[in-house]
């Protein structure tokens, strides 16, 4: 019997977020932020301060004054050279948030303005200055291959920023109690251990004196809370430490929208060489990402993007140059489909352009070019080959009748173009598009962050699951309980998935990239199967399992050798659209997806996850416009920002085909982001009779 207590609590409005913690004694924090994109701070002019307000500056931080991510150092408070509009300069602490707001406006920061770059660098000189990371991966000999091919096509694709739009803006509550043995921080984070580490370092405290807890209610859109909560929590913890008071610190939705990380935009230039039979022989790519002032996990993003470009097709000669640029914008980076979704959008629109040039049908061209044992992808020389299954293509073709519809709509479009006065030209224009893609499960830094599960069974047969992971949904918790229940013969109501205790469990890394469903689920299964062997008279008992990161150790990220992922899931999507010829506004008519995500543990939840991904992908492709003008998001964008709503999406057809490996549990949260944008854009291009190469789409592709 499924335990529904937690879900009932949500429906009854009993979820508690940071904003719901009412502590009348708690002080508030306001961040004084930079107002120019790049400049050296020369000094400040302070107004007279009421005694209840305290200003906290960088020099007041008792411990480390930066957060470190690989080669990136982020100042907790930057009083020297500000790098983006909105960068935190100092903190104001006091009992009344309105007073803090007013004083913050009265503080004058004197800057020496420095040149700011906010876009992708356009010439070599600028590129040299702005580059953070560059990597070139080559297989075969592309230069010679280009000389031999029959046809060459070169195109450029761009993708934009995307706002996370999580349910509660960033915030943290720090409880101060003179008698307490730990400093307790409550924040929503995908990586509470990282919050713990940053707070411990900035306050110069031993690990055991800090404790981080997260809200019980899992937030499905927590990707934006990957690393930024560490900065917010550090600010709150510093304020609590220095004022000896509890702190409540919550960004406004607008502040969050304007200054916190977004999906990183990309430019992907592709040059493909095709032989006489229509096979892609050679692919050259120039991948660029603008990750703002502080590119956190730049290499992870770049590697995923490079991998995605080579994962689908059997192309013997490739050269992929990937670059991450810094700029004077707020940090941009992790979002569902990190790096891979930008690459796959470009690759799958490019492949549609190639087949159009050759006059082939999309399915025929893809089937001819998909990687296989006979015609391996560049990465299939690695020890464990991951092959995109061609049957997914045939399944989605069968479900959508794609070939026939595509051919019919092509004829209609041609007729319309030749007869602009005909009724077909004035009614809705229709188009249908297809795309393939995949997602890899696992974090490239798994070798450093070992996921861990501890499973205890008490004498009265109650089971406690303690993990190093943040479950992203109730359904996931429910899946874990179901596994333990079935394996150990204990009712689900007697199984507890315990909240994370960062001062008790080791750092298991962030709960992203489907690590929960792949790694944690596997570890729970292993714990259960070991406990099952335990004789009933030997209770209580406890088993601890942690990830053996063999696959992660095998991955050579400089040469792209070995296995980067625990598993790869694949999907094919078809999208059909209608466009109003007057407004050029598109409407999605149908979505079909065939998915190979291995063993599906809960089909309803799997469908839900895919559909949430489709909504996010449609938002990124069509609706969600974020851009910066001179380093600042124009104000109206906040008011007009629109994510996908129920009228924007039809009910999708989703089919699960465990073709590749029906035993493994794989991830599927990023699959829609891998395939929907390109399928949708290919459909729009057919409907408009004009190729779209940039998202988000603007009416008519202008």
């Amino acid at each position, binding site marked *: 019997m499924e335990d*529904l207590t937690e*879900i*009932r609590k*949500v*429906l*009854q*409005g*009993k*979820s*508690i*977020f940071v*904003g*719901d913690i*009412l502590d009348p004694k708690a002080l508030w924090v306001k961040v004084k932020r930079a107002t120019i994109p790049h400049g050296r701070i020369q000094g400040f002019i302070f107004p007279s301060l009421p005694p209840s307000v305290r200003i906290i500056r960088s020099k007041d931080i008792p411990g480390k004054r930066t957060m470190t991510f690989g080669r990136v150092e982020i100042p907790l408070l930057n009083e020297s050279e500000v790098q983006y509009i909105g960068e935190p300069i100092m903190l104001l602490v006091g009992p009344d948030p309105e007073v803090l707001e007013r004083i913050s406006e009265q503080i004058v920061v004197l800057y020496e303005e420095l040149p700011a770059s906010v876009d992708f660098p356009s010439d070599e000189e600028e590129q040299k200055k702005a580059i953070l990371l560059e990597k070139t991966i080559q297989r075969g000999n592309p230069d010679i291959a280009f000389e031999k091919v029959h046809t060459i096509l070169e195109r450029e694709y761009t993708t934009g920023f995307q706002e996370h*739009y*999580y*349910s*509660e803006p960033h915030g943290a509550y720090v409880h101060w109690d003179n008698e307490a043995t730990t400093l307790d921080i409550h924040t929503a984070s995908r990586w509470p251990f990282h919050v713990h580490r940053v707070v411990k370092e900035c306050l110069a405290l031993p690990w055991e004196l800090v404790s981080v807890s997260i*809200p019980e*209610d*899992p*937030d*499905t*859109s927590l990707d934006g809370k990957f690393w930024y909560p560490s900065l917010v929590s550090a600010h709150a913890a510093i304020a609590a430490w220095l004022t000896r008071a509890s702190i409540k610190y919550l960004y*406004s*939705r*607008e502040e969050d929208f304007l200054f916190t990380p977004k999906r990183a935009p990309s430019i992907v230039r592709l040059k493909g060489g095709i032989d006489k039979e229509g096979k892609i022989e050679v692919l050259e790519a120039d991948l660029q990402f603008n990750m703002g002032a502080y590119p956190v996990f730049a290499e992870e993003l770049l590697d995923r993007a490079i991998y995605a470009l080579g994962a689908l097709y059997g192309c013997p000669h490739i050269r992929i140059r990937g670059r991450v640029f810094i700029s004077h914008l707020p940090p941009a980076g992790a979002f569902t489909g990190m790096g891979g979704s930008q690459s796959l959008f470009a690759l799958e629109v490019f492949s549609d352009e190639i087949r159009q040039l050759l006059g082939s049908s999309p399915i025929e061209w893809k089937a001819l070019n998909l990687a296989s044992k006979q015609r391996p992808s560049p990465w299939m020389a690695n020890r464990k080959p991951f092959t995109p299954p061609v049957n997914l293509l045939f399944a989605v073709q069968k479900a959508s009748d794609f070939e026939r519809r595509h051919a019919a709509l092509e004829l209609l479009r041609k007729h319309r173009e030749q007869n602009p006065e005909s009724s077909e030209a004035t009614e809705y224009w229709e188009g249908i598009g297809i795309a393939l893609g995949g997602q890899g499960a696992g974090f490239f830094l798994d070798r450093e962050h070992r996921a861990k599960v501890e499973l205890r069974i008490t004498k009265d047969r109650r089971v406690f699951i303690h993990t190093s992971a943040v479950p992203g*949904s*109730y*359904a996931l918790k429910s899946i874990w309980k179901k596994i333990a229940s079935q394996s150990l013969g204990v009712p689900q109501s007697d199984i507890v998935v315990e909240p994370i205790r960062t001062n008790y469990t080791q750092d298991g890394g962030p709960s992203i990239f489907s690590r929960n469903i792949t790694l944690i689920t596997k570890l729970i299964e292993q714990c259960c199967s070991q406990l099952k062997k335990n004789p009933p008279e030997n209770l209580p008992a406890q088993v601890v399992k942690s990830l053996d990161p063999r696959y992660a150790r095998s991955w050579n990220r400089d040469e792209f050798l070995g296995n980067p992922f625990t598993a790869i899931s694949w999907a094919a999507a078809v999208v059909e659209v209608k466009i109003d010829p007057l407004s050029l506004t598109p409407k999605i008519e149908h979505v079909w997806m065939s998915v190979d995500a291995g063993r599906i543990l809960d089909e*309803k*939840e799997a*469908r*839900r996850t895919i*559909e*949430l991904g489709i*909504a*996010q992908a449609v938002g990124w492709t069509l609706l969600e416009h974020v851009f910066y003008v001179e380093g600042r998001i124009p104000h109206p964008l*906040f*008011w007009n*920002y*629109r*994510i996908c*709503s*129920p*009228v924007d*999406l039809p*009910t*999708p057809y989703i089919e699960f085909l465990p073709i590749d490996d029906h035993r493994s549990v794989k991830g599927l949260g990023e699959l829609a982001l891998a395939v929907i944008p390109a399928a949708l854009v290919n459909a729009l291009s057919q409907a408009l009779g004009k190729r779209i190469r940039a998202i988000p789409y603007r009416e008519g592709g202008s």
Partner: protein
Amino acid sequence: MVITLDLNGKEETLDIDPSLRLIHLLRYTFGLLGTKEGCLHGHCGYCQVLLNDQMVLSCLTPAFYTHKGKVLTIEGFRGTPEYYDIEKGFLEVQYTPCGSCASARVLLTHAILQETLHPTEQAIRKRFTAILCRCTDPSRLVEAVQRTAAIRRHRQHAV
């Protein structure tokens, strides 16, 4: 200014600042935290409550506007048979919105079913554009509301 309102079935009289928003009256004066504060700009729709049986954005509604009115929040609704129809309908189809928008979704479902017990898919989708959240798969939402409608029809028929 002094206002009197029916809040979750109980008459309340209080002296308020005219600039007070309804959401802050509910959350901070009465501690009704089930009404979530999303954007404070009327954008996300998480803060919606029923005022005189109509859904309103409590962040954009001045508290004085409720004078002599009837306000229903999730706290007042969750003990009613109508609430249990919704809970049952949502759970039967495994529809689990997040804690930020759940209260607004439950109340909006109630408002829709007050108007008709046979809501169409199109009508449901249109009404729920008033709540913007990344947590919801629209097809499951439609299924949940229609399942709830069936449960309520059955219950009312039984009565």
